[in-house]
């Protein structure tokens, strides 16, 4: 508990909290660096994630081929195959339309990551706002918000997503919205609980007594002090959203088939599996697994570093 002073400093008036930003900042990053070096695995995870982010941003510059270019003459080339000149033209092979698997994988990183991050951004913001409001005001507001959360929690998320996407039609915007709205409950519950704990602290009373508005107390006073667990949840959440996106794409409910995605590539690989075109299934799956694994490892580390109380709950 004593470890988590850096982000969740209680018992100080808001003015002091602002001052704090520059004091423990240096020591916070130093502690983070030390903890990372000590545990080792998160560094590997960070490296993998940096690579994925890099590919997502610079994909068009890096990808050897146009991911949608159809070359029927080069259909279903196995990976690592050299041509007559001894060159490896398609490092990870080609699919049933002769599209380059490596290029599609690189472009796929964009969709997986951006869908994951944007959806978590939507769900996290919405959930935090609602949880903060419920915890701060309590009473009827709290009741309504939390009952809504209960209802959503009692409803298997993927079914909800399927229902909405079938009716509205697949597409990046719908997908991101559905995945985002599906996530708000987790954030709302944590934010509410933490807010209720903070609300009773003296610094809030102090802020109130000098006439700070509700909004100021909520966003300048409480929010910075409840961020740590929310950040931890978000890191795991990006991982599970990426998995959900892959499932929905696999069902044909993700982004349109012209956009290369990892889940979509796996869906297409299914028809080729019996003919033993293993590379079509192995590589996109590995890409998803390594990304999600890295996020999970990083989430574990963030939790232990920022908020060890969450151990066993997330």
């Amino acid at each position: 508990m004593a470890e988590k002073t850096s982000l969740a400093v209680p018992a100080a008036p808001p003015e002091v909290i602002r001052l704090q930003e520059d004091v423990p900042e240096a020591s916070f990053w130093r502690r983070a660096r030390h903890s990372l070096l000590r545990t080792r695995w998160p560094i590997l995870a960070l490296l993998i994630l940096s690579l994925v982010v890099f590919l997502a941003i610079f994909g068009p510059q890096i990808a050897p081929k146009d991911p949608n270019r159809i070359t029927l003459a080069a259909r279903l080339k196995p990976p690592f195959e050299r041509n007559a000149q001894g060159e490896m033209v398609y490092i990870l092979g080609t699919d049933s339309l002769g599209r380059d698997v490596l290029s599609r994988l690189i472009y796929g990183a964009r969709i997986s990551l951006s869908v994951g991050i944007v959806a978590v951004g939507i769900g996290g913001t919405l959930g935090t706002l609602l949880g903060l409001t419920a915890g701060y005001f309590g009473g009827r507001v709290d009741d309504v918000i939390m009952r809504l959360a209960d209802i959503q929690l009692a409803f298997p998320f993927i079914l909800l997503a399927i229902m909405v996407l079938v009716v509205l039609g697949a597409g990046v915007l719908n997908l991101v919205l559905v995945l985002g709205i599906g996530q708000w409950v987790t954030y709302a519950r944590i934010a509410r609980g933490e807010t209720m704990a903070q609300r009773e602290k003296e610094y809030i009373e102090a802020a109130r007594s000098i006439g700070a508005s509700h909004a100021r107390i909520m966003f300048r006073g409480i929010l910075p002090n409840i961020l740590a667990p929310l950040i931890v949840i978000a890191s795991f959440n990006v991982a599970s959203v990426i998995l959900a996106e892959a499932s929905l794409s696999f069902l044909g409910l993700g982004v349109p088939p012209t956009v290369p995605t990892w889940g979509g590539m796996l869906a297409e690989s299914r028809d080729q599996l019996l003919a033993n075109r293993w590379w079509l299934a192995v590589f996109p799956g590995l890409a998803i697994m390594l990304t999600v694994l890295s996020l999970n490892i990083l989430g574990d580390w963030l939790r232990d570093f920022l908020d060890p109380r969450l151990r066993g709950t997330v």
Partner: protein
Amino acid sequence: MGRYLARRLLQSILVIFGVTLFSFLSLHLAGDPTLLYVNERATDAQIAETRHRLGFDRPLYEQYLAFMGRLVRGDFGKSLVTKTPAMELITTRLPATIELTVFAMLLAITLSIPIGLLAATKRGTPYDGGIMLFAIFGQSMPSFWLGLMLMLYVGLHWKILPISGHVPLLDPLLAGDFKTAIGNIPRALQHLIMPGVTIAMFSLSRNARLIRSSMLEVLALDYVRTARAKGLRERTVIIRHAFRNALIPFVTILGLEFGFLLSGVVVVETVFSWPGVGRLVFNSINQRDIPVVQATVVFFSLLFVGLNLLVDLIYARLDPRIRLG
């Protein structure tokens, strides 16, 4: 217990209301649902006639009440493609899905307990490290990908298990034919293993981690030290004293577990061509047979709500703080 029961029941009713309202409204999300029921060449007059026949011209609340009335009588609507009642489509496929889900749940529960216990009692040893590595991998792969890999290697390369197909167990059992049911068990299991493992992997990994961490927490408590100090065997301390309390957080997620497994069912049945409700959903999605998708979503949700309620009641019996609180 009575008050808790009443509150929990009320909550479930609220949830059912929410779920049905949501499924009902989602049909109207994309605009006029009548357009789903007519073909593209239909004239305006035909569309208006269909709209009237299906009641889509009535106020929304009336439509919702009618929808609820039909649900109560077990009428979940009709398939646009085959014109058969959706409920019939679901019930004929339900046994296969139940077989798969129950099998997966058994795997997820029975394997995760010894694995999690082993990791907790051997904390810091290579056992623990290996188990935790396995668990974090298990939580990080898309389930259908695991399914594809199993098919590719276990099924196609090594030819150990069949890659698709289903041997019925529940169907002959329900028909009263016990001999066939028992005779089918060995072959049915062969077909169940790969899809079952695929669905169970995520929960299995998460449960193992959960049991490990809650076990470690309990083992650090004073009463465990007392039990050891009075000379009880380590086995007794772990099984009778620590494990029982460590199980409590595990029981709470068992209800949600079913939802996880159900979501897995839709994709995994598709991968293994399993003739269950999940594949029905997939096929209905592809044919845009929305009433069937809607019926399945509502049906699964009701099942989910019911099971959650059941689990909470079991939980209340296990934990006196809730029963009496």
